């Protein structure tokens, strides 16, 4: 400690430290806080993705396991969960199933459960047994959890599941929500023998999940391919038996 320390001043040291502290606070406010908010909203969306898969599992139990009633409580944070009842007027998207001979021609308006995030543009929808995510205002969508359509090779059977969502009125909720669901009796559609080529058209004017459905229907599990026309039509040939199973789930409350 022989060095000359005449220039050392407590005031300068204090100003230096204060400057560092203020710079630090400034950086955190400018860059750190937005990252935190983004992280929070992406956590909310992630939780909601999981919650939607839970509801999808409940719906599967209602449809495939002969369970008459299900309820599950979930936390809807950072957004709103909305029920869009199916049917001709309310629902936006529709599935049209037809075959080459024209003896099958059924339209389904399955309705949906939709979550919209407040802070980000993410939209998660539970539509016709599939959990689909998309960004509001931009094209494209992806399927988080798939429905259970399948083509059975050895018996050449094509099985289509339609899961309608109905409710007495449109409902929306944020915060703690208890989704209470009941399976309604639907008259079974008898299997159609030798339909030839089966066509499925997905039609949605505003809520666009067409990319997700395209990727699902043309996946190896379902094995359809895109028809030349019209738009968003998929077809599968060499079908000996077409099975359309329609279920209706009533959302009693959320």
């Amino acid at each position: 400690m022989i060095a000359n320390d005449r220039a050392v001043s407590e005031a300068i040291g204090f100003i230096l430290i204060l400057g560092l502290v203020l710079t630090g606070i400034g950086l955190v406010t400018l860059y750190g806080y937005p990252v935190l908010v983004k992280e929070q909203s992406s956590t909310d969306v992630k939780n909601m993705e999981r919650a939607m898969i839970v509801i999808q599992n409940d719906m599967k139990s209602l449809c495939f396991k002969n369970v008459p009633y299900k309820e599950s409580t979930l936390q809807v944070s950072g957004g709103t969960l909305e029920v869009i009842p199916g049917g001709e007027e309310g629902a936006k998207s529709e599935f049209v199933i037809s075959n080459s001979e024209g003896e099958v021609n059924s339209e389904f308006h399955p309705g949906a459960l939709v979550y919209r995030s407040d802070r980000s543009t993410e939209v998660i929808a539970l539509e016709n047994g599939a959990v689909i995510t998309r960004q509001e205002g931009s094209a494209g969508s992806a399927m988080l959890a798939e429905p259970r359509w399948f083509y059975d090779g050895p018996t050449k059977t094509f099985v289509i599941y339609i899961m309608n969502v109905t409710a007495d009125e449109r409902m929306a909720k944020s915060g703690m929500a208890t989704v209470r669901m009941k399976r309604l009796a639907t008259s079974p559609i008898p299997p159609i023998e030798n339909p030839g080529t089966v066509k499925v058209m997905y039609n949605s004017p505003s809520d666009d999940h067409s990319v997700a459905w395209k990727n699902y229907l043309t996946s190896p599990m379902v094995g359809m391919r895109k028809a030349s026309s019209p738009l968003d039509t998929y077809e599968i040939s060499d079908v000996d038996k077409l099975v359309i199973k329609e279920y209706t789930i009533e959302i009693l409350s959320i």
Partner: protein
Amino acid sequence: MARLNEEGQWIVLMGLLVAVALFFLALIVNQSALVGQTTSEAVLEFPKNDIRDLRSAIFDYIDAECNEEVEQDIIAISLERKNAVVSFSVGGPQDVQGHKMHPVSIHYNNGVTAYNETTHY
């Protein structure tokens, strides 16, 4: 101040290291929850009882001299109640180790699980 014993500083440093490690572990745990859920679901959904019921129904059908209408009923009921596409075929009796047995091939598919079996009854 300089004369203070500073040999314990590594403890503070280790604390920092542990905190960083915990942060990354938390990230991994956050990612894995979804994977675990879908995997356990797949295990739970294996239709063991459905396949057993189908096998026993087919063996009863063989005992009852293979009635064609019963075969159609088994296929229709499997589709309606269990959402499964099934098909099966029964061959004529063969001599297997001194017993007369029918070769049976069973096909079961419910969209998640496909099951094929060839056996003798």
